[in-house]
């Protein structure tokens, strides 16, 4: 598992994390050489915390993998807004090597009050890392539901997760 995790991290560092999430077989990953300039050691965190203080109102997220102790990179998330009794998909994003998204989930005119769901693809995330899981896994597609009422405020949504549980909260 460590070898695959390292290789994957290297791929993500080279900007190829999306290809891993697209379902590349673990065997193929193991044969891929680490790219030059990739993160040096397994388990080394190369990203520092970042402050969003002073930024304009927006919705941002941060996925944190508490199983590996790393940012949750390559997590596919579907963002939807509630309309009546259903949720309408706004967009699907994949987290960057930092566990954040390259762009805010919602900002400027797109940042509206409402009831939202971020559907996170936990099972696909851990299977891509070659983590041994039951089938079906305990947590597959996880709905993270939250409300934005005041669009004059910045909203940050951290999600801490493992194959067996998760937490989310209004961060800053």
């Amino acid at each position, binding site marked *: 598992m460590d070898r695959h995790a390292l290789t994957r991290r290297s791929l993500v560092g080279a900007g190829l994390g999306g290809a891993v999430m697209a379902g590349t077989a673990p065997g193929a990953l193991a044969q891929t050489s680490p790219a030059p300039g990739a993160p040096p050691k397994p388990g080394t965190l190369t990203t520092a915390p970042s402050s969003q203080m002073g930024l304009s109102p927006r919705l941002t997220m941060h996925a944190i993998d508490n199983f590996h102790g790393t940012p949750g990179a390559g997590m596919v998330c579907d963002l939807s807004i509630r309309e009546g009794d259903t949720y309408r998909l706004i967009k699907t994003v994949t987290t960057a090597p930092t566990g954040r998204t390259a762009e805010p989930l919602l900002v400027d005119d797109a940042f509206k009050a409402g*009831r*939202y*769901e971020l559907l996170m693809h936990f099972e696909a995330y851990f299977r891509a890392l070659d983590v041994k899981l*039951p*089938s*079906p*896994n*305990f*947590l*597959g*597609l*996880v*709905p993270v*539901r*939250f*409300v934005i*009422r005041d669009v004059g405020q910045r*909203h940050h949504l951290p999600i801490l997760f*493992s194959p*067996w*549980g*998760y*937490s*989310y*909260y*209004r961060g800053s």
Partner: protein
Amino acid sequence: MAGISTHVLDTDRGRPAAGVKIELSVREGDTWRMVKTMITNADGRTDGPVVAAADARVGEYQLEFHTDAYFKGLPDAGGEEPFVDNAVVRFSIFDVKQHYHVPLLCTPGSCTTYRGS
């Protein structure tokens, strides 16, 4: 013991969350079928099992916790609107011989769930 059980804890106040409505649904194809509604007792648990051992099947289950109404209805509610919408926890029974204890730790601004015991 097998089946499903839950426990709701108000970690804002450090006590069991009593009187929380919980809806149990099961996945049937692309839809969720609501099976039953329960209310947590003074200990934050349901009086009976959420799913009894004999009724447990491999598949996906959903617990919707009406935490929004719970927090707004507390006598000492501050009038602030919760950030967490009604927490919805979806999980699978992958082995009917095992027990699935799925607690919810909640505050108006956060929630946590995990496979407990």
